[in-house]
């Protein structure tokens, strides 16, 4: 069997493993859709002045702001939990696959495919719910910001799942996602601009992209996009290294 065929087999098995739990798919759709739809629909259209990437300012409403950024918080949390438990499954089963002749890279590719697919499902549900209530100035930066949020937090979840037990990892994801994406980066709070230390957190680039897509017609978040990609690549590399070490270690 070639490397590509083994990777395809491992990926198929990893997805089959997930298919045994159809409730996961339902929840990956229902949870983001409910939280996004409910939060936007219930928010009052109170005027709000915010800063937009590119040194601009915009006057909008709290309701529209919820439309632009609420999906980020819920995707971060859902993706983080997916990361925690996919990593747990990988640690439990993939060592045996490596002993059976698969390379660590092949098993890792399969697990990463599952994580990316789960993030894509939550992303699609969030975007659909957002579109029902909010009309952003430009969809691509908003969707890209949401996707980067999902990938970054899935990686943080996977690292937490590798280093901590499941209860501690769940607490870490709850706290990190809510604090970073939902509060620190959220222009609904404070003076409408993230604080000076917000740039140090992984949610900064993606959430600024969401704000850019929501309220700016011209894309001005090139630096934020680069920062979001850098976090995604760095955390992805850390997850890959962590999984590679774990599946090689045996026992």
């Amino acid at each position, binding site marked *: 069997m070639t490397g590509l065929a083994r990777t395809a087999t491992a990926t198929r098995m990893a997805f089959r493993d997930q298919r045994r*739990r159809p*409730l*996961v798919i339902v*929840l*990956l759709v*229902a*949870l983001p859709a*409910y*939280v996004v739809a*409910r*939060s936007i629909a*219930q*928010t*009052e259209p*109170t005027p709000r002045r915010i800063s937009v990437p590119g040194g601009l300012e915009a006057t909008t409403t*709290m309701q529209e702001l*919820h439309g632009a950024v609420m999906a980020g918080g819920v995707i971060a*949390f*859902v993706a983080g*939990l*997916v990361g*925690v*438990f996919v990593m*747990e499954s990988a640690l439990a089963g993939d060592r045996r696959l490596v002993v059976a002749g698969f390379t660590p890279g092949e098993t890792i590719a399969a697990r990463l495919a599952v994580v990316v697919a789960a993030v894509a499902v939550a992303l699609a549900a969030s975007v659909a719910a957002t579109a029902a209530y909010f009309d952003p100035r430009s969809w691509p930066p908003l969707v890209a910001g949401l996707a980067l949020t999902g990938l970054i937090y899935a990686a943080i979840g996977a690292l937490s799942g590798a280093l*901590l*037990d*499941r*209860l*501690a990892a*769940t*607490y*870490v994801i*709850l*706290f990190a996602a*809510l*604090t970073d994406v939902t*509060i620190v980066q959220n222009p*609904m*709070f404070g003076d409408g601009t993230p604080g000076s230390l917000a740039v140090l957190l992984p949610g900064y680039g993606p959430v600024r992209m969401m704000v850019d897509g929501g309220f700016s017609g011209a894309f001005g978040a090139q630096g934020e996009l680069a920062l979001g990609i850098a976090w995604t690549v760095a955390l992805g590399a850390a997850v890959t290294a962590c999984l590679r070490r774990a599946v090689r270690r045996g026992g």
Partner: protein
Amino acid sequence: MRMLNATVPVTGAFVREHLRAPLTLTLLVAVPALFVLIFASVLGEFATALGGTLAERSATSISAGWAAAFLAGTLAFFQVSSSRGADRRLALAGLGPGRVASARIAAAVVLALAVSIVAFATLALRTGIEHPAHAAAAIVAFALIYIGVGAAVGAVVRSPLEGSLIVVLAFSLDVFSGPRMTSNAGLAEWTPTRDAAEVLVAAGGGVGSPQGDWLALAAAVGGSLAVAFGAFLLVARRRG
């Protein structure tokens, strides 16, 4: 007395089981404290954005209740979901399903009390509380009610990902429908923590709660612990 003698050491073992990893203990202390410190400053603004009338001081108080609720709920879920095989073997080995369930629920209550004490202390240090006894009782009630939510989910759902997502969904429904969080009452009449939130909001605002609210809160806590006991019992009895 015999039941108590058998249950107490097992309860201690179940508590230690969760605190084996030093980081879990650290997080049980740090997360509610940080949750209260960080969320207290924005919950008033959040409630206003949703059209609610939650005053800042009351919003600060309710952050402690939600911190305790979420931590206790996830803890109870993982207690049930990760102990199915062990609990059944313990029951079959002579402890019996009733004692196993009693020890499990006692361990969950001990851990929920620890989380509640941290949340309460943080709240008291950050803002001060005019009705400390009322606020403490309401925060503990939040945690005890979510033991029922988490344990019920754990008894029905085996997968940790599915279960934790359901606990989060229940928590989201609760947060968005909480008293005075929104102008649209929606499910507010049916959420499990409605009475706990009413008492905590009142205590945070310096107002005592009437007897009717306390009776409703006691019923919610009693019902929730009964559900939790049933869930632990079911898991200790059920094969597989």
